């Protein structure tokens, strides 16, 4: 099958200067980066959504770490970030999207992620707004049951907005409808979003564990992790507006009182210690309202920290790839 994917263009950086995959069918890697500059818009203005520029911005920011990321010492890990292991990362490029063809774009995204899973690579998705999570999580049908970890200021449980069911306010509602999603924790919630009381009640009835930002600030990350449902597999969706806008100014919906860098890093590391991370997305970055690319650089750091945590947890880089 031909997957509608645009390889990272020649002359533009790939994530961490990773090898560029010519075809998803031939990927042989531990981790595959996939750009998903995706949305299903609620309004005609949003059809040119700001986060469509984010995959390129995050790749450009990540190029600062090359070629030292895997070799140099990292104070937060007490060793190099991959613990001496050769973690094989490829950049699969961006899912090709056509204006207006939202159902086809969604199907293409699901097919691309499914192809990565079949090749045994953990997908690391660069959104896109939060609509991107919907087609990604649909690709896990054959992957066994998983718990969704949703780190976000907002609940994202709307059934529809303006008659659109697959938009950025609905990813956790859509995830809850997938038979293979057997648990959910939503961490960093605060303030006002798209949710009304009905959506909160629905999330509660489904069994979603909601950890407020104030819970993390007052009780710490360990207490938050203790409330996360236990599972063998986790999918993590990280909305950059979970971070405080002081640190992550370039987001679509800044929300004050957010989590800080250490809290998010510790959350990611803690979840990697609970079970296998089968996929990750980072969404809602708006490069045009960023300050000197800080939010994209922050995203690169968080991805590296997660990959380091997965390596230290023994998820990859152990057998056969010791560098």
């Amino acid at each position: 099958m031909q997957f509608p994917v645009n390889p990272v263009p020649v002359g533009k950086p790939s994530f961490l200067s990773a090898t560029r995959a010519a075809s998803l069918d031939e990927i042989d890697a531990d981790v595959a980066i996939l750009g998903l500059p995706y949305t299903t818009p609620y309004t005609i203005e949003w059809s040119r959504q700001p986060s469509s520029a984010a995959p390129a911005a995050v790749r450009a920011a990540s190029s600062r770490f090359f070629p030292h990321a895997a070799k140099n010492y990292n104070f937060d890990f007490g060793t190099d970030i991959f613990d001496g292991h050769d973690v094989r990362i490829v950049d699969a490029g961006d899912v090709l999207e056509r204006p207006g063809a939202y159902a086809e774009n969604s199907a293409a995204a699901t097919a691309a992620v499914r192809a990565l899973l079949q090749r045994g690579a953990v997908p690391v998705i660069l959104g896109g707004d939060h609509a991107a999570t919907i087609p990604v999580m649909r690709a896990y049908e054959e992957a066994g049951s998983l718990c969704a970890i949703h780190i976000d200021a907002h609940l994202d449980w709307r059934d529809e907005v303006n008659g659109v069911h697959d938009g950025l306010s609905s990813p956790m509602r859509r995830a809850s409808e997938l038979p293979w999603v057997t648990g959910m924790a939503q961490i960093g919630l605060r303030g006002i979003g798209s949710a009304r009381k009905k959506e909160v009640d629905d999330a509660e009835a489904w069994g979603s564990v909601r950890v407020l930002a104030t819970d993390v600030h007052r009780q710490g990350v360990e207490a938050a992790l203790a409330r996360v449902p236990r599972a063998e597999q986790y999918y993590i969706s990280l909305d950059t507006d979970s971070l405080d806008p002081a640190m992550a100014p370039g987001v679509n919906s800044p929300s004050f009182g957010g989590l800080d860098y250490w809290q998010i890093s510790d959350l990611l590391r803690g979840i990697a210690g609970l079970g296998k991370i089968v996929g990750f997305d980072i969404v809602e970055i708006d490069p045009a309202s960023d300050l000197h690319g800080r939010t994209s650089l922050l995203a690169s750091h968080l991805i590296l920290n997660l990959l380091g945590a997965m390596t230290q947890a023994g998820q990859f880089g152990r057998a056969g790839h010791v560098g």
Partner: protein
Amino acid sequence: MTDFGDSHAVPGEYALNAANATEAVAGVAARSRVSVILGGDVAACLYSVRGLSRLGQVNVLHLGPRPLWGRGADGGPSGVLREVAALDGVGKMVIAGLRGPAGCGAGGVGLARSRASLLPARQLIAEGTEPVLRAIAAGTDWFVSLDVAALDPAIAPAVEEPSFGGLDYWQVTDLLTGLAARARVIGIGVFGISPERDHNFLTSRLAIRLTSNLLGAALRKDLENHGEPLAHPARSARQLAGAR
């Protein structure tokens, strides 16, 4: 307070510029209770300490996310603290605020650790200033090398290499005032500000405020000990003559 202007620098003449900077710092230091050096990137730390150390032994507290103990070209910023450590007249070194990518391998970090006290940012955030101040002997002479990247990029955006999870205003203020209350601060250098990356002059304003906080604490310490602010109590007439 006197502003001595800028050390003269000629494009391409790096050795000459380094020598000029060293002479200028030594001259300023001989005439000042506290010398305030405005960098420049952290490479200027080397010339600052070289100038100060001509007048007597100096200990160095560096605040920054990286240990700067790499093996880059001589005078380059990535190995500047390794070069500072090799100077005659440099006593104890404390490097605080470390986090994230070190900019060198485990070997470099090991060498740094064998010469300097290394304190991660997370330890300061969790435990406060005490782990740093514990390494400072009362009454000794200290130079503060402040790489503004020590601070969180949320409040100090104007840096070449933002490092997340950094120190906040109060943590750095408590460190500087705690040091000044305990030991004799003879200089501070503010390094690594990239104004074109700033936002509403935030980083430059922060540097002014932090430096002022340090100077205020040093003045209070003098008033407490001597009943008056001292012009340059740390330096004897012999040392002053030597500097000329």
